[in-house]
């Protein structure tokens, strides 16, 4: 293993969010998780219109309200004040998870504690240390058509979050389709990560050397473009 290095944390998150936003096409229904995944909404490319679903009962979630325009009855799934776009709709929690579990969400973007090459995701619990609960994550990962795991590549300890096999309690089994980190874009395929793109200043060689998982470099692997 070579020494891992990262550039600024916030900057890394922005890169991840900007790249994920390029997955979507107009009309896609997208659910963004709390934290880093929420940032994705800031970088939807011009000309692309996605429909944001929020599990607390909103389709067509809009941007944060202007200060002073907050509505106590309208928040996002992270309890922050929200808005709804023209044409949006509200519904109860059973209906909301009918949308999610029923396969009517095109993409869900979620945070990561660990993700492995089988597509298993762990993101809701570190036994004995941090147990926030799964919230809607288990339903989202099982129900969405495509699952994108969004994460900085390394933990603060320097360990890659991409694993051969998750050791933490799983959120769902074999459901992750893509992993986007500040190093690259990976597709989960038949027991390995397929490296599709890498971010400068890194390289496929650096990614292979710093990650203890089976990673195959795609034949057409290229440097990621953000704009």
């Amino acid at each position, binding site marked *: 293993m070579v020494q891992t290095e990262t550039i600024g944390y916030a900057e890394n998150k922005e890169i991840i969010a900007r790249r994920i936003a390029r997955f979507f096409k107009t009309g896609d229904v997208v659910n963004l998780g709390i934290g880093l995944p929420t940032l994705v909404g800031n970088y939807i490319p011009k000309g692309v219109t996605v429909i944001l679903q929020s599990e607390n009962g909103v389709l067509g979630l809009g941007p944060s309200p202007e200060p002073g325009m907050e509505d106590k009855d309208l*928040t996002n799934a992270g309890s922050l004040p929200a808005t709804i776009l023209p044409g949006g709709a509200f519904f109860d929690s059973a209906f909301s998870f009918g949308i999610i*579990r029923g396969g009517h969400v095109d993409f869900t973007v979620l945070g990561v504690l660990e993700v492995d090459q089988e597509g298993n995701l762990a993101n809701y619990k570190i036994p004995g240390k941090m147990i926030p609960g799964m919230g809607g994550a288990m339903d989202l990962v099982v129900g969405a058509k495509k699952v994108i795991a969004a994460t900085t590549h390394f933990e603060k300890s320097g360990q890659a979050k991409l694993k051969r096999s998750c050791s933490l309690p799983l959120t769902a089994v074999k459901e992750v389709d893509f992993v986007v980190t500040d190093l690259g874009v990976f597709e989960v395929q038949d027991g390995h990560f397929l490296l599709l793109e890498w971010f400068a200043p890194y390289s496929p060689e650096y990614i292979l050397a710093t990650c203890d998982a089976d990673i195959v470099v795609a034949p057409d692997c290229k440097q990621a473009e953000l704009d």
Partner: protein
Amino acid sequence: MVEKPILTAAQAAELVQEGTTVQVGGFLGCGSPDKILAALLARHLHNLTLVCNDTAVYDPRTGRINGVAPLILDKAFSRVIVSHIGTNAETQRQMNSGELCVELVPQGTLAERIRAAGYGLGGILTPTGVGTEVEQGKQKLVVDGRAYLLELPLKGDIALIKAKKADKSGNLIFSKSARNFNPLMAMACTVVIAEVEEIVEIGQLDPDFIHTPSLFVDYLVQ
């Protein structure tokens, strides 16, 4: 149509006894019946069981607190059945110290279990949680080659819910994302108390736009 009693929040809180299972609407405090919860807090009851999406928000650093969180701090509950406790530091503390039993349920499963109770179903089959800790102790069934967990109905003694508007018969209209679990809980509990912002005469609500019909509501609080 029969008019429903309109209670004060304090009178509503009197209906809750130690040992009661209360289902409380709200999503991180949005859509919770705050007046009833404040009156319940004033009674300082213990050994209640809570069914709610979450244990609301309590952040000691910012002082932000909402929904059921003050009741958590007052140790009103011996057991909570929720999908998320990550925004209430006190819930985690009481869980770790053994003071509070926390049963974590995936949010969609929680909604369906409450719905199943109200709809008279013996349970629901969901793929959520298969292969995770959530499947422990549950029946697993394979339907058309896909594995599902049998999740059982979740009833309550008293629903404490929040709506925007009611007529005097108890027809309810919820507001925006404050709807969340409220209409589900109205069908799943023996006694249903709805805190509302506005009460209008019977006949003034368009029957096409009523979210919860009056038959489910026992008391109104304004």
